[in-house]
């Protein structure tokens, strides 16, 4: 699994141009959202957490849909499956790599959000924790669905169609926790949402790993 993870990370490093493109896409989405509700500074600040997560979600479909690109060329996936390793470790390597990429993307989008929506916070560690947990919730089922949709033609359409209904709880909890972090949390309400996120992550990281072997088998 370490070797598989190394391969994923190396691959991502070598295609970092694509990461930049996804980042620009995410930043552009954040800019566009503000046109959706007009130049009302206080409203923008109120909804900033939702915008950040929607931007991240939309960008994540690009990242995830492309994440099996290398495996699909020259039927490399079949070659990988022939190796004396568990398909599960291939899945976890891919999911961790996607997770890291999305977390970095989320962190990179924070300054954009702060500048555009005036949504700064002093509780940066909590915000980073929420972003890490939320993107983990996106990447576990996202990687599994990407493995399916990468093999068919309409992957750009089908991946969001399958993924979006599924990650509703993760999105809800992330938005809630992030907005509590940004707008202030006098009642300590962010904590249950973070626990919910954690539970979602645990369930899907184990379940998807379990089912992955069946998805890629021939």
């Amino acid at each position, binding site marked *: 699994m370490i070797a598989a993870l190394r391969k994923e990370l190396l691959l991502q490093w070598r295609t970092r141009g694509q990461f930049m493109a996804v980042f620009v896409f995410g930043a552009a989405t954040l800019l566009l959202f503000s046109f959706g509700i007009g130049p009302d500074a206080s409203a923008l600040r109120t909804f900033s957490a939702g915008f950040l997560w929607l931007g991240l979600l939309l960008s994540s479909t690009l990242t995830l849909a492309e994440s099996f690109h290398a495996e699909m060329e020259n039927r490399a996936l079949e070659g990988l499956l022939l190796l004396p390793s568990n398909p599960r470790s291939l899945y976890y390597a891919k999911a961790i790599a996607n997770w890291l990429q999305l977390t970095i993307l989320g962190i990179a989008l924070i300054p954009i959000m702060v500048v555009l929506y005036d949504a700064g916070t002093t509780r940066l560690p909590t915000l980073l924790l929420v972003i890490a947990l939320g993107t983990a919730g996106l990447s576990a089922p996202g990687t599994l669905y990407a493995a399916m949709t990468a093999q068919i033609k309409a992957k750009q359409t089908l991946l969001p169609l*399958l993924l979006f209904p599924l990650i509703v709880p993760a999105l809800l909890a992330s938005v809630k926790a992030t907005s509590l972090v940004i707008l202030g949390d006098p009642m300590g309400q962010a904590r249950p949402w973070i626990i919910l996120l954690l539970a979602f992550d645990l369930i899907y990281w184990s379940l998807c790993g379990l*089912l992955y072997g069946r998805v890629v088998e021939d």
Partner: protein
Amino acid sequence: MRKGYAFIAIGALLLLFGSYRGLFVAPPEQFMRDVQRIMYVHVPTAWNWMLAVIFTCICAVAFLLRNNMKWDSRLEAGLEVSTVFGFLLCCQGSIWAKPTWGVWWDWDPRLTTTAVLLLATLGILALRSFVEDPTKRAIWSSVATIIASVDLPIVYFSVKWWNSLHQEQSTPQTVSSPFHLPLRVNAFGVLFLMIGFIMLRTRIAAARLERELAEPPVRIGEEAGELA
């Protein structure tokens, strides 16, 4: 085949009788008056929708354990029937909610969960239509069904934390006795309809699968052309 039609006929008769009782015989409800009568179809649809969803999950698990394609045909039928029922449920709910709550839609846990599941089953059906290999299609849709059904309780509880307004579920215990008969009769009516639909749809799916798995007919002329 006959059995499927028989179930549908019985279901339609029961539904006709139950709805007649519900519309004309049962007294109107104290506060909601006639608007409440939609309960006689809405609540049975909701119960049977849940049954259809459970049936679909069982098919998905059974397929992954047994690798028998007949479970895939049943899965396809269950997915489609639960999509239709989920859609009906949202429509009936909106028709009832507008005069009662004053809005078409509300972000209540049950409504939201139904909508999320409706989208999820539509997504799985779309996935099925794009995959040509029957084995892959069966495995993938089973996997997606299991993942989506694990999601349901989480969606329910997260939305419940988020917001709530829907009234308690109506069961024969929570409504007064003159409402019981139409509610029960309609519940069985919809149940029979659902079983009939699933049976017929399973047959269609199985027939399609058989055609897909059959060897394509080879004509002598084409074979010769390939060799040349």
